[in-house]
C-alpha cells in the first residue's frame, strides 16, 4: 500500500505544476503587474515611479514565463512564474501583497472554518444517512413518498434562503442565538449552533435522496433477501448489511471532500461573520493579490488530490476484496 501511496503522490506533482501554470496564465491574462500595483498602491495620486518600484520589489518586473535576456537556467528561473511558484512546493507560500504572511493567515483562518465545516459535515452525514435508511425502510409507503417530496422541496431552495431565513426566524424573531459572530473557546458554541443547523438542514434534501437511491438499489439484492430469510430484524439488515455494502458510492462522494473542509464556505462564513478561509480566495481575487490566489489554488488542488487518495484507500477498508498490492 505504501508503494501505491508514494506512486499516487508522485503523480500529483505534474498535476500541481499544471494547475499552477493554468492559474498563473489565467490570472495574468486578466491582470497585468501594473494593474496589481495600482490596486495595491491605490488609484489616488499613484505615480509611474511608485508602480515601477512596487513591481521591482516583488519581482513582477520580470518576464512571465521565459526570460529571453537571461541565459542558462535563468531563462526559466528568472521569471515571475518560477519565482512565484517554486517555493510553494516546499510549503513556503510567502507573503500576501499587503505584507501578511500567507501561511500564518491560513493557519489562523483554518480553525474557524473547520469549527463550522466539521460538525456540519459529521452531523449532516449522520442525519442524511439515517433519514435515507428510514425512507428505505418505509419504501413505497406514504412516509417514503412525502419524504421524497420534502427532499425535492428542500433541495430546490437556495442556500442563501436557508441562511437569511434561519437568521430571521431563529435569531431575529425568536432571539435564541446571535445572528452572527464568532468567539473562541467555550463561547464558540452559541455562534456555531445556527450555521451548523442551517448547514445540516440545507444539505438534507439532496443527500438524503441520493443515499436513499443507493440503499434502495442495495436492498433489492440477494444477500438482503437471504438476511431477511434468516429472520434478522430490519434495522440489523439496514445498519449492518445494507449500509456497509452501500458505503463505496457514499465514500466516493464523501471522503474526497473531507480535506476540502479546511477551505471553508464562502456564503456561510460571510453571513455569519466567521473569520475562516471561505472568502480568502475571493477577497484575494478582488484585491488582485496573486500571492494569495496562487497559494489557495495550490492548497485546494493538493487537498483535492489527497482527498481522492483517501477515497481510494477507504475503499480497501470497507471492501476486503480491494487490494492495492500488485
Amino acid at each position, binding site marked *: 500500500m505504501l508503494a501505491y501511496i508514494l506512486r499516487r503522490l508522485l503523480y500529483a506533482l505534474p498535476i500541481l505544476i499544471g494547475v499552477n501554470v493554468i492559474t498563473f496564465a489565467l490570472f495574468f491574462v*486578466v491582470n497585468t503587474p501594473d494593474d496589481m500595483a*495600482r490596486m495595491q498602491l*491605490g488609484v489616488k495620486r499613484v505615480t509611474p515611479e511608485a508602480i515601477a518600484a512596487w513591481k521591482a520589489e516583488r519581482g513582477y518586473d520580470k518576464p512571465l514565463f521565459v526570460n529571453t535576456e537571461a541565459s542558462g537556467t535563468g531563462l526559466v528561473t528568472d521569471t515571475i512564474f518560477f519565482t512565484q511558484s517554486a517555493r510553494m512546493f516546499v510549503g513556503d507560500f510567502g507573503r500576501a501583497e499587503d505584507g501578511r504572511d500567507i501561511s500564518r493567515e491560513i493557519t489562523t483562518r483554518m480553525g474557524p472554518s473547520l469549527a463550522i465545516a466539521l460538525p456540519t459535515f459529521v452531523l449532516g452525514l449522520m442525519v442524511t444517512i439515517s433519514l435515507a435508511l428510514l425512507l428505505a425502510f418505509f419504501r413505497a409507503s406514504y412516509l417514503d413518498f412525502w419524504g421524497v417530496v420534502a427532499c425535492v422541496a428542500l433541495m430546490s431552495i437556495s442556500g442563501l434562503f436557508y441562511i437569511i431565513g434561519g437568521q430571521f426566524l431563529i435569531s431575529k424573531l425568536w432571539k435564541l442565538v446571535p445572528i452572527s459572530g464568532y468567539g473562541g473557546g467555550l463561547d464558540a458554541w452559541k455562534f456555531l449552533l445556527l450555521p451548523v443547523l442551517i448547514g445540516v438542514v440545507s444539505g438534507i434534501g439532496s443527500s438524503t435522496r441520493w443515499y436513499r437511491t443507493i440503499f434502495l438499489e442495495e436492498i433489492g439484492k440477494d444477500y438482503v433477501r437471504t438476511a431477511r430469510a434468516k429472520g434478522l430484524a430490519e434495522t440489523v439488515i439496514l445498519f449492518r448489511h445494507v449500509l456497509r455494502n452501500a458505503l463505496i458510492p457514499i465514500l466516493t462522494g464523501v471522503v474526497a471532500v473531507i480535506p476540502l473542509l479546511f477551505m471553508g464556505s464562502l456564503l456561510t462564513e460571510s453571513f455569519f461573520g466567521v473569520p475562516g478561509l471561505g472568502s480568502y480566495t475571493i*477577497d484575494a481575487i478582488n484585491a488582485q493579490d496573486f500571492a494569495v490566489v496562487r497559494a489557495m489554488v495550490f492548497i485546494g488542488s493538493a487537498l483535492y488530490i489527497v482527498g481522492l487518495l483517501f477515497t481510494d484507500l477507504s475503499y480497501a477498508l470497507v471492501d476486503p476484496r480491494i487490494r492495492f498490492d500488485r
Partner: protein
Amino acid sequence: MFSSRRSLRFSSFLALPALALLLAACGSEWNDPYPAEQRGQNILYSAFTERPKHLDPAQSYTEDEITFTAQIYEPPLQYHYLKRPYTLIPATATAVPVARLYDAEGRELPADAPADRVDHSVYEIRIKPGIRYQPHPAFAVDAGGAPRYADLDRARLAGIDTLSDFAETGSRELSADDYIYQIKRLAHPRLHSPIFGMMAERIVGLKELGATLAAAAKDLPQDGWLDLDRYPLAGVERVDAHTWRVTVRGKYPQFLYWLAMPFFAPIPREADRFYSQPGMAEKNLTLDWYPVGTGPYLLAENNPNSRMVLARNPNFHGETYPCEGEPGDAAAGLLADCGKPLPFIERAIFTREKESVPYWNKFLQGYYDASGISSDSFDQAVRLATGGDVQLTDEMLDKGIKLLTSVRASIFYMGFNMVDPVVGGLSEPARKLRQAISIAIDQEEFISIFMNGRGVPAMGPLPPGIFGYEDGEAGINPVVYRWRDGKERRRPLAEAQQLLAEAGWPNGRNARTGEPLVLYLDTTGGGMGDKSRLDWLTRQFAGLGIQLVVRSTDFNRFQEKLRKSSAQLYYIGWNADYPDPENFLFLLHGAEAKVKSGGENYANYQNAEYDRLFREVKDMDSGPERLVLIRRMLDIVRNDAPWVFGFHPKTYTLGHAWLANRKPTDVGNNILKYQRIDVPRRERLREEWNRPLLWPLAAGGAALLALLVPAVVGYRRRERSAALEKS
C-alpha cells in the same frame, strides 16, 4: 421495557439542545454576541466591512484604515470636532503653525505675498511637552537602560505570537525626532507611501532622500532595517527636542491640512527597529499590524478578519471636550460635556460584518451602537415626508434611534473626454453639445430613484461645506438650472434640444450628413454598471435623440481606458483629502490632465483662463478675494461643461439613544474620543428588546414527536407483521 427505554433516549435527544441553550444562556439575552463579562462595561460596539490593509501611517490612505489609525496616531494638528466650516486646531502641537515665506534670495516675505514671489515656505511646529507613547515592548528597557528587546531572533521569538506575549513594556516622551523620522519614512522605498510622489515635489530634499534610500535598500535583506536617522533630509530640521521645521517649495497653504493626517504622525525609531528584527514579520509583528501611537486609544487586538479592539491608552496626555460649536450644537446637546476630560469610552470593539443583513439586525437588537442605512433596510429605517424631508419610521422612533444626515465632501460626476473629437474641445458646438447633455440628464430623478434621495445635485465641482460653495440663487449652475419661485429648476428638455441643434445635431442627427449621434459610455461592472441605472441613463440620452452605447468592462481596463484617453464618457467620483477648494478645483486643472501627466484630471480638460485662475486660487487664503476668483472659475467650468456635475452623496447614520456626542464629519476622523455611552440605559433596553421566545422550541419538539411517533408505530407494526399475508 423496550419502548420505555427508547422513549427515554428519544426525549433525552430532544431535550439536549434545549438544555444546552438554557445552561449556557446565563443572562436573559440568549442572542447576545458578546461575552457575559462585557455586560455593563463602557464599551462601544461597532462594525467594519472591509478589512484594513495597512495600519502603518506612511501607507494607510483609505477610510477602512483611518477609522483605526486616527484614534491611535496623533499628527500635530486635528480638526475641531464641532465647528463648521472645518477648522484646524492643535493636536500635539502647541499652536497651528504659520508659514514663513521666503523669496529665492532667502529674504522673508510678508504673509500675503503673491505665490509667484515665494520660493519656499517654512513651517515651525512646536509640540507640547510631556506627551507619552502607549505602553509598548519596543520601549522596554533593562536595569541599565538598554532596550530590553533589541536582539531578538527566530529562536527567542518562539512562543511569542502577539505583542501582548512580550512580558515587559515601556514608554517614553514624544519628541520632534519622531515626526522627522516619519517624514523620512514617506520616502522609504519599501513602504510605497501613496503621498511620496506628491510630497517629494513639495518637501525640500524628500525626492533626493527617496533616491538615496532606494540605493541603500537594494542589498538589504527582505525585512532588514534601514536606520533613517543616518540619512539627512534637507527640508526638515530639528530645532530642539520639541520643535521641528519643514521647508516646502513655494507657497503651499494646504500643507497644514496634511499635518492633520496620519501621514505626518510620529513614529518612534525604537518601534521601527523593534519590528525589523528577524522573525517578526513572519508572525505579522509589524508596524503595519501593531501601531504605536500617543493617541487616546491603542490597538489591543488586531484580527482584521473578525475583530479589532481599541482600548484606552493609559498614557494619553489628556484633552477636554470642546465648548464651542456651530449654532444648533448646544440645542442638540453637543455641548453638554464641555470641558470634560477625553476620552469617554474605555474600549471600542469593531466586529467584521461582511453582509448588511446581520449588521442591520444586530443594530436593531442593540448590539451595535450605530449603523449606516443600506438600501435593503432604507424603507424600514426612514420615510420621505411630503416636501422631501427625511423622517425616521415609527419603529425607529419607538426605539429612540436618532438620525444624523450630512452631505459628504465628495462629488460623483460624468466626465466628457475633452480630447475626444465628438464631445471634446472648447469649440462652441462641442460646448453646446455637452451643455445639452448636462440639462438632459435629470440628476434629481436619478437621486430620487436610485439613491433614495441620498444626494444633492451638484452645481459645480465644489460640495457643500467647502469654501466657495454657495447656496441659493448665487450658487446655481445657470447653464443647467434657472432660479424660479425661490428654488432651482432644471431647464426644460426643449432648451437642451435647442442647444443640441445649435451644436449641429438637430434631433440627435448630424445636420449635414443626417447620421445619428452615437456616444459611448465606459463603465465598470459595479458602480454605474447596474442595468436599471444604465437603462435610465440611455433613456435620458434618448430624450435628445442621442444613442448611448454602454461599454462595460472590468476595473483594470476601465482605468486603462481613462489613462489612455480612449473613453468618451465615464462616471467617476472624488472624495476630499482635505476641506479646501483646491482639492476639488485641481481635478480640472490642465497640468493634471490624465493623458498628458497621469494626474487626476480624467476629463483632460484644459482652459487657459481656468488654469491661470487656479494657480492664483490654490495658494490664497480663504477670503473675499479668493471667493471672487473661485466664482469666475466655476463660471468657466459650468459654461465649458467638461463634466455633467452629478451629485454630492448624503450619508444617513443611525445611532441609539444611549450614544451621545455624535456629529457627522467628513475629514476629522479621530472622533471616537468625543463619543459617550449611557451604559445602564443600553443594558436596560437590550434586555427589553432581546427576551428569547421559548415556545418555538417547545413547538419544534412537539412537531418532531408528531412526526416520529407514527414512524415508530409503523416500524413496530412492520417488524411484527408476517412475511406473507394470509390470503
